[in-house]
Each structure stands twice: as structure tokens, then as C-alpha cells.
């Protein structure tokens, strides 16, 4: 073991300038790779949104004039005697708790029952079985699981609330947006990165009785206006009549059409970014692999001397792997350091990039993979025939 460590240090020291350049190249490669992978992860995470509304026979209605409170779905349904099962609403609110004001989202029963949001911990509203506190879902790590809050309405009446679940800042919550026509309307319009502190049931008839007393009208309404609603239908065949009735007041689009549009956009994004990543991967593999391979060839004489003096081929391979691992790891830590410099991070990455521990791990594995391929080839070559022959051929 002593020999392996000493010889590895020798080899790193031998090409110290080239190794420093290589480490910087690795760090820069990792930073760029993080960006590409982060983008793909972001796109991939968005594909989960499509699952949120799967198997729902639903239509999304957004009025032409989104400030008008008069033309709600409820009014149109009533005027046209339409057969609609439920209307899904999302309300933006500000709720007071312990003298602090929190932005929050209010989901009605239709949204709670029919949307499957990805939770990082805890459970969704429909699994909550207690009746003595209002269940809330924490967003952006604002609260921990099982935390209790005292929510207060404008009359000063207080209601106990308990955190039953949590959604990670990297995932999505359902919010409605005013959007364009059928061809461009995408399910993505519903999915937003969480901006609020928590989600609370809104006008729920099915959740604890305490929720019924919770008078939302006394809370500050932060909604920019009525932007849209989800109409859940009994049968798909009802859609034609419903679409005709709603089309006078706004845009109405089948959820399936929006999912299709969304998947098309995601696919295009994924392929275009995937191609860039593939080309980048090849170029960096050639660059880093080439330099590493060159060093391995230059080090061949050293390995032959080690072999002659008593190192076996496994020890030679261990020296090569330790050398490669040390350089790759140092480059990786330089990348982490640079990533934590906020000016560099802001310069390189947009908000549409999802970087987490797994992104870093993936980047590190990628760098190790490039090194391993080159070093492995070299080690296998060492195993073929006599090292002395290699030495003489080189001479």
C-alpha cells in the first residue's frame, strides 16, 4: 500500500502543471455538464406534471377577460344547464399566523381529489383522518412535518393547523394561468414552482369539520383575478356541448389536448438538449480522455520500473486508478467550490435548471467514467505480454 501511495504521488507530481490544467478542465467540464444535466432533469421533472391529470375527463376554461368576476364557470354552467361533475379552483391567499403573513394556495375538493402532486414527505389531504386541525401542505421547506400553526382570520378567530405533508422547492404545485389558444395551451400552464408557504384546503366539504368554520372570506385575497378553472366532466362525450357553451366567453381546452401539446414541447426540449449534451460529452471525453491517455503513455516507463522492482500488475493498476481518481476528485471539488460562488452560479445557470446532489453525483460519475475508460484500456494493455516489451517498443 505504501508503494502505491508513494508512486501515485510521484506520478501526480511528475506532471504537476499538466495535472493542474487537467483539474481546471475537469472543474469547468463539470460546471457545464451540471448545466446540461440540470436542464434535462428540469425537463424530466416537468414530465411528472402530465401524470397529475391522467385519467381525468377535464376541460380547462380561461376567460378572454381575466379580470371579470362575472363570467365564472359556475355562471356559464347554470345558464346553459350543463352537466359538469365538479369545478376545480385554486385560490391565492394571504393567511395570518402568529403575527406573520403567509402567501398560500387554497385548493378546493375537486383539485384535492383529482390532482396527484409529488410530495417529498408526509401525506396528501385525502389521507388525513383527524378532525381537530386544518391540514396544510408545506411548500419551499417553510415548515416541518407535524409543525402546528395557529391560523387567524380577520375577526381574530384562531384555528389550529398541522403540517401533514411537504412539497420540495424543486417540484411543482398547481396554479392556474391565463393562457393562449388550444394549439399552444399546455399542461405546463398549471404547474408552477412553489412560491407560497403552504397549501390549505379551500371551501372543502370533505375535510375536517373545523375547515368548514374557517371563513376564507375574512382572509386577504391576493388573487390577481379569476384566471381559470378546471371542469371535471362525467363523460368525454359531454365535451362538445360544454366547449360550445364556454367558447363564447373564453378559451376552453381538453386536458388531453394540453397534455399532448405539453409532451410534444417536452420531447422537443429533451431531444434538442440531449443532442447538445451528447456532442458536449463526446468532445469533453476526447479532450480529458486524450490528456489522461497521453499522461498514461508518458508514465509507462515509470510503471515498468515499478514492475521490475517488485510491483505486480494489480499494484500498477491500483497506482493508475488512484492517480486518476485523485485528479478527478480534486477537479470535482474545485467545481463544487466554483459552484458555491454565487456570481459564477448566476452567470452559468438560469432558473430553468434543476441541480441537486444527484446532478453532482452524475457529473462525477461521468468524469470518472471518462478516466476509467482511458485508464482501463491502459491497464489492460499492461496486462498483455511483457511490460519490458512495451518499454522496448517505446524506446
Amino acid at each position, binding site marked *: 500500500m*505504501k*508503494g502505491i501511495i*508513494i*508512486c501515485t504521488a*510521484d506520478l501526480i*507530481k*511528475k506532471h504537476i502543471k499538466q495535472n493542474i490544467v487537467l483539474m481546471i478542465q475537469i472543474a469547468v467540464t463539470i460546471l457545464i455538464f451540471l448545466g446540461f444535466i440540470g436542464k434535462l432533469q428540469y425537463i424530466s421533472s416537468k414530465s411528472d406534471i402530465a401524470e397529475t391529470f391522467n385519467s381525468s375527463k377535464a376541460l380547462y376554461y380561461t376567460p378572454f377577460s381575466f379580470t371579470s368576476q362575472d363570467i365564472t364557470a359556475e355562471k356559464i354552467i347554470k345558464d346553459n344547464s350543463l352537466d359538469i361533475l365538479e369545478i376545480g379552483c385554486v385560490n391565492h391567499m394571504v393567511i395570518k399566523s402568529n403575527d406573520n403573513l403567509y402567501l398560500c394556495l387554497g385548493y378546493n375538493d375537486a383539485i384535492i381529489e383529482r390532482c396527484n402532486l409529488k410530495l417529498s414527505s408526509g401525506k396528501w389531504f385525502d389521507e388525513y383522518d383527524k378532525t381537530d386541525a386544518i391540514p396544510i401542505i408545506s411548500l419551499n421547506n417553510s415548515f416541518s412535518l407535524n409543525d402546528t400553526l395557529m391560523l387567524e382570520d380577520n375577526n381574530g378567530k384562531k384555528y389550529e393547523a398541522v403540517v401533514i405533508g411537504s412539497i420540495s422547492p424543486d417540484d411543482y404545485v398547481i396554479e392556474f394561468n391565463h393562457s393562449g389558444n388550444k394549439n399552444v395551451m399546455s399542461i405546463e400552464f398549471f404547474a408552477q414552482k412553489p412560491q407560497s408557504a403552504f397549501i390549505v384546503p379551500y371551501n372543502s366539504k370533505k375535510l375536517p369539520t373545523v375547515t368548514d368554520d374557517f371563513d376564507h372570506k375574512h382572509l386577504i385575497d391576493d388573487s390577481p383575478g379569476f384566471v381559470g378553472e378546471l371542469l371535471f366532466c362525467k363523460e368525454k362525450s359531454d365535451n362538445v356541448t360544454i366547449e360550445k357553451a364556454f367558447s363564447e366567453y373564453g378559451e376552453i381546452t381538453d386536458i388531453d389536448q394540453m397534455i399532448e401539446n405539453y409532451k410534444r414541447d417536452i420531447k422537443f426540449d429533451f431531444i434538442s438538449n440531449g443532442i447538445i449534451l451528447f456532442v458536449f460529452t463526446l468532445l469533453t471525453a476526447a479532450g480529458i480522455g486524450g490528456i489522461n491517455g497521453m499522461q498514461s503513455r508518458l508514465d509507462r516507463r*515509470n510503471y*515498468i*520500473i*515499478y*514492475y*521490475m*522492482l*517488485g*510491483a*505486480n*500488475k*494489480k*499494484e500498477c493498476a491500483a497506482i493508475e486508478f488512484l492517480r486518476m481518481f485523485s485528479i478527478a476528485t480534486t477537479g470535482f471539488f474545485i467545481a463544487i467550490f466554483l459552484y458555491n460562488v454565487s456570481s459564477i452560479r448566476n452567470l452559468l445557470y438560469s432558473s430553468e435548471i434543476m441541480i441537486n446532489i444527484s446532478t453532482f453525483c452524475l457529473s462525477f460519475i461521468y468524469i470518472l467514467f471518462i478516466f476509467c475508460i482511458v485508464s482501463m484500456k491502459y491497464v489492460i494493455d499492461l496486462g498483455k505480454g*511483457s*511490460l*519490458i*516489451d512495451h518499454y*522496448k517498443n517505446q*524506446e
Partner: protein
Amino acid sequence: MPIKLTNISKSFNGNSSNKINVLKKIDLEIQDNDMVAIMGRSGAGKSTLLNIIGCLDSPDEGEYLLDGQDISKLSNSNLSNLRNSKFGFIMQDFALIEDETVRHNILLPTYFSRTKINTSCEDLAKKLGIYKLLDTKASLLSGGEKQRTAIARAIINDSKYIIADEPTGALDSVNAEMIMNIISDLHKTGKTIIIVTHDIIIAEKCQRVLTISDGHLD
């Protein structure tokens, strides 16, 4: 018999049409404390024979017994141990790690040794006249100094056999003579010396001279 080679053959380029039979059914016996010179023209197979004796290469056919042990039955790891403990190598191009110090080069075999080494690097350096150079990089040494460093490295593990491939090939006559004197002194201390050389003067200093030609040992 410390070293006994029987019917040893070695070829290169495998089964291809360019196959070269370097060694053809060679028999060789070397006694303890022997000093043997192996001569022959370039490409005759001297170095290949030396590599096989030094366990750096393996024969295609034949039997090699080292101190009664059949070398062909040893694993790669055991062969490495054997090289480390029993053989010291002195090469024409010195085979030193040029970027490292003399001390580091001399100590290299001890890093791979499975047993404790009692020989002092400083004592060896003093004996060979390179003590003051211990912390000098090998690349800054003269040819004679490099070869003395290589000799120190070859004996730091108290190896029984010294394998020397053209040890004076890259040296001037003064340094060549000094190196040969050192090798002769090693022989006097009981070590078995096997030298490959072109130089008849060096060969004459050995107890036995063997000539290899066309793959056969005369």
C-alpha cells in the same frame, strides 16, 4: 541448483507469419556466486533470456527452476515478490525515475517489499560514493552516478541475484571500469551476477562467458 533452465523457448508475434523464435530450447545452469557473461549480436535473444531469468517475462515452453522452485507455477503476485526479494536489476539506460531524488530511487524497491529491509540507504550511498547526491534529482546526475544509484537500488533489498543488462553500455571507459569494479566487489560478497554485454573486456572479468546466437546458447 540455484538457477536451472531446461528446454526454454520464446517467440514473438505469436502465430503470425512474422513469428520470431528468439530462444530455441535453451538449457542453462547457474551456480551460487557465479559471475556469468552472456554475449551475442543484437537481436540474438540476450535480453529476452535475461528477462526470463529475472522473472520479468515468461517462457513459451520449458522449465525454469529458481532455488528449486518451478517459476511457471507461481502467480503474478508471487513472481513480483520474487523479483523484489531475489533480484536486483541494473539496466543500460539506468531505469531511474528521473524526476525523483537519488534517495527516492534507491528506496523504491523497499516500498514494494513484503519484508522489513534492514539495509540503510545512507550506508549504501556512502559505499558507492553518492552520499552527497542523495537529495539530488536523478536527471541532474552524470552517467556514472546514475549507474551507481541503480546499483544501490539493486542491492538495497539484499537481493541474491544481480541482473545487469549492458551495465556499461552508456558510460565512458573510466566510469565503465568503476562500475565493473563495483559489480566485481558485489560478486566477492557472495552475490550471483548475470551480465549481458557486447564488450569482450567486461566478459573477460566474468567466470563464465556464454554466447547466444540464432536462439541457441553455446
